[in-house]
């Protein structure tokens, strides 16, 4: 596209300031419309019938009594959603998850759905659907699922990545291996070795807004979908593919989104809503209850991880080895593989090996959760690294600095690193005042480091200059938490105009070209690149208009501070503002705009180090977080308030994961705590102020040096908190969450 994304060192006027966000007023007045805030005339209400069994064969479904109920307009089952996936494994898994086919695989798996004139009728209709199940033995624990006598979810799973291919089916869908060097020799050379198994329980992204959509399919095949999503273009493609609809006839509008964190990058009930609308010939509104969100959307993996690390007495790691077992729910995915990739990525290792095993269990289909798979691996590795440092009598930060990866290091997952910021964040942690603060009784301090990739992706932006000189910026990446403010700053910066003269909006699938979803910390990174490109294209147009007005070549026109200026001798010092040029645009060639369609690629990584102080009550096992600091590399913080917000939010989720959050299953394989009362996320009184330090090591692949920041901050907290708790309690905690019963058990064992 002719756009050069390489870093251009510059002084900023707008970028780096902290103005008010443009969507703020709507959100503080309750006017902003989220997924469930939209209604269409004549809409029906949908409800989904879900399996009460963890594992069962569906022997029959009879929907006739439900269909006969007055007020019911459509009932769908898998029969209404035929398999059009053409053998594509991942698409078939999505289809089967949206609506069970011949088997149900978890408590909450959708079996049928109804659309009726009101909620009361829909609920009554569910009770009239007769389903007979042949209940099968189930398995929910990741280690138990690997046992020789474990109940099998499928009879055709022969572990991929194993040579020779296994002859019997199992629950281990795939095996992957990474590493280099000779770990046996490395361990032989080690003077101290730490070896331990770590477990993390399943958690949910916990967004406050349940999944909600309104689907409307017309008889001619055109359709609309209003939905809270992290990727309306991706949803459009997926829904169209699953339902055999023409993608160009499906218009998806993204509502404001009430949290996603990866859980709204996948479809759950949206294809079902479209199927109901198609059958009923009326719009259908489908809102998941909180119970359904926990049972039937996409929590993260539960894991069981073996780590072994050896070092010499002067603190150099000689070998590192990890085996990671991750649960993916009923169908295979690549969660363990990703965990295996990220495990030792912060370190410069001569001998390293990681093995990832994807394990199938009777739980909901795992989905991405903010730096997916990395937090659990970091928990295990950073805990082991801490233990190793302690055994060596070394300061934990110093030990990490001594072994940290840098430019030119061969990463444990294969590629050689370019410029990376792990060293600077560790050094900043060492120097931070938090490290010097005194600790009280029963208190302990822990730290950990971590990283996540940043992705680019397909990105389109339309920048239109209005007749009054203001600018409208249409982007396609969903704004999860302030991106419109950041992008407005970027447009203001490029054009040299005031921030409040720019208005950013999120366009729908019919009005803008394809945009990848908001994941991979790509929202601000990629959309800002496209915004810069679009702004420069608009500037080119405005220089041409000025040149035309003055009758001089466009090469003699420069753009400065929101003005076109003539530099030709004899033309004097003419200048036209963006407002002047826009006002005359009707006579100079028409409306002024800049577009950009690009693939933002070559994004880097973002490293972070966290420091945590906790107080553990030895009588109750209750833990209080006393102080918390996040130090993370942002490349260039476009809007520092919202960068800080990402750091604090990720840390809070990690703290909850470390101390309280877990899926609890009964012996019957049913989820016992599908609600916010017993699935305990951090509340306001649980946390202290969360201090943040933004480092800015420019990303060479972005004009302003921007790095994506949204995910990395959830990677270090599990280990930072575990190290702090272990130090406070005087015993190593290796099972997350470290809820009071687990801490008390560990204290009891200690003596």
């Amino acid at each position, binding site marked *: 596209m002719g756009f050069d994304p390489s870093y251009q060192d510059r002084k900023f006027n707008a970028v780096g300031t902290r103005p008010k966000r443009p969507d703020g*007023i709507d959100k503080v007045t309750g006017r902003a419309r989220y997924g469930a805030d939209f209604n269409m005339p004549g809409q029906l209400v949908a409800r989904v019938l879900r399996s009460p069994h963890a594992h069962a064969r569906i022997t029959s479904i009879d929907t006739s009594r439900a269909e006969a109920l007055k007020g019911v307009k459509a009932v769908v089952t898998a029969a209404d959603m035929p398999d059009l996936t053409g053998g594509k494994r991942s698409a078939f898994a999505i289809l089967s998850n949206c609506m069970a086919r011949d088997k149900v695989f978890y408590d909450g798996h959708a079996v049928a759905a109804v659309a009726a004139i009101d909620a009361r009728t829909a609920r009554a209709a569910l009770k009239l659907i007769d389903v007979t199940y042949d209940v099968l033995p189930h398995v929910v624990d990741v280690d138990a699922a690997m046992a020789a006598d474990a109940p099998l979810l499928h009879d055709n799973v022969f572990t991929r990545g194993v040579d020779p291919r296994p002859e019997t089916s199992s629950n281990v869908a795939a095996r992957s291996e990474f590493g280099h060097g000779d770990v046996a020799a490395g361990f032989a050379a080690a003077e101290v070795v730490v070896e331990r198994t770590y477990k993390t329980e399943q958690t949910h992204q916990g967004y*406050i*807004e349940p999944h909600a959509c309104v689907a409307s399919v017309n008889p001619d095949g055109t359709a609309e979908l209003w939905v809270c999503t992290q990727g309306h273009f991706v949803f459009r493609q997926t829904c169209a593919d699953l339902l055999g609809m023409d993608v160009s006839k499906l218009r998806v509008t993204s509502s404001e989104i009430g949290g996603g964190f990866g859980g709204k990058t996948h479809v759950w009930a949206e294809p079902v809503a479209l199927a109901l609308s198609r059958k009923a010939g009326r719009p259908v509104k489908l809102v998941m209850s909180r119970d359904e969100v926990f049972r039937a959307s996409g929590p993260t993996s539960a894991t069981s991880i073996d780590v072994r690390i050896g070092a010499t007495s002067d603190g150099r790691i000689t070998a590192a080895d990890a085996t990671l077992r991750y649960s993916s729910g009923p169908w295979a995915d690549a969660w363990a593989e990703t965990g295996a990739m990220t495990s030792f990525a912060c370190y410069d290792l001569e001998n390293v090996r990681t093995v990832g095993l994807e394990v199938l269990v009777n739980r909901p289909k795992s989905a991405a959760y903010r730096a997916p798979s990395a937090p659990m691996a970091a928990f295990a590795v950073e805990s082991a690294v801490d233990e190793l440092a302690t055994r060596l009598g070394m300061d934990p930060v110093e030990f990490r600095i001594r072994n940290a990866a840098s430019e030119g290091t061969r990463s444990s997952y294969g590629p050689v690193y370019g410029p990376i910021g792990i060293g600077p964040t560790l050094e900043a942690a060492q120097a931070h005042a938090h490290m010097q603060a005194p600790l009280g009784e029963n208190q302990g301090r822990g730290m950990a480091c971590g990283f996540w990739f940043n992705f680019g992706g397909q990105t389109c932006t339309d920048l239109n200059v209005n007749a009054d000189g203001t600018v409208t910026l249409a982007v396609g990446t969903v704004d999860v938490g302030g991106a419109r403010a950041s992008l407005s700053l970027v447009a203001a910066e490029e054009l040299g105009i005031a921030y409040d003269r720019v208005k950013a909006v999120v366009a729908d699938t019919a009005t803008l070209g394809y945009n990848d979803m908001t994941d991979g910390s790509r929202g601000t990174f990629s959309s800002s690149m496209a915004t810069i490109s679009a702004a420069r294209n608009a500037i080119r147009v405005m220089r041409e208009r000025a040149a035309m007005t003055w009758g001089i070549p466009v090469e003699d026109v420069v753009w400065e501070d929101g003005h076109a200026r003539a530099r030709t001798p004899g033309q004097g010092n003419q200048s036209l503002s963006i407002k002047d040029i826009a006002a005359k645009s009707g006579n100079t060639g028409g409306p002024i705009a800049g577009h950009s369609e690009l693939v933002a690629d070559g994004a880097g990584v973002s490293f972070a180090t966290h420091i945590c102080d906790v107080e553990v009550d030895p009588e109750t096992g209750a833990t209080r977080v006393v102080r918390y600091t996040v130090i993370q590399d942002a490349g260039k913080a476009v809007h520092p308030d919202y960068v800080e917000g990402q750091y604090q939010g990720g840390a809070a989720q990690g703290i909850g994961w470390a101390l309280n959050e877990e899926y609890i299953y009964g012996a019957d394989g049913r989820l016992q705590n599908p609600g916010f009362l017993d699935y305990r996320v951090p509340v*306001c009184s649980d946390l202290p102020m969360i201090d943040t330090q933004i480092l800015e090591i420019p990303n060479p692949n972005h004009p302003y040096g921007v790095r994506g920041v949204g995910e990395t901050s959830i990677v270090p907290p599990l280990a930072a908190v575990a190290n702090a708790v272990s130090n406070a309690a005087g015993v190593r905690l290796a099972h997350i969450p470290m809820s009071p019963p687990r801490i008390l058990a560990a204290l009891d064992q200690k003596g």
Partner: protein
Amino acid sequence: MSAIAVSTTINGDDVEFLCNSDETLLDVLRDRLGMTGSKEGCGTGDCGACSTIVDGRVVCSCLVLGAEAEGRSIETIEGMADGAALHPLQTKFIEHAALQCGVCTPGFLVASKALLETNPDPSEEEIRFWLAGNLCRCTGYDKIVRAVQDAAREMREA
């Protein structure tokens, strides 16, 4: 099953509506009256996204029946600003970047308003415990607490 007729006051206005016996005040606000500012995050009174003030007391509207609104005074997020003039809490939330996705924000604003009407000079601890019934998953609460502190200071000085 016949609907129940209810007469109440919402944000200072007289309002009449019909509702079923099993509808919550939240259902009524959102589905009958089109007031979608109050959000349903859980339906079981655990998240506070549906916070409203009933006769001066902050409650989860998902735990109040629509019929219970009879004769009472209800305040929702829609009534927090005075026409075009935002409430100091609303202004401070924006200034302090105390919202990211914003879905919990109406609940926090209503609950904070009730706090400052009860206690105009709350300590950080008092703020945190008062707001412990409002869940936020995006911010980690830091900027929310700062916004409430700043709004309280401004309101005291006014």
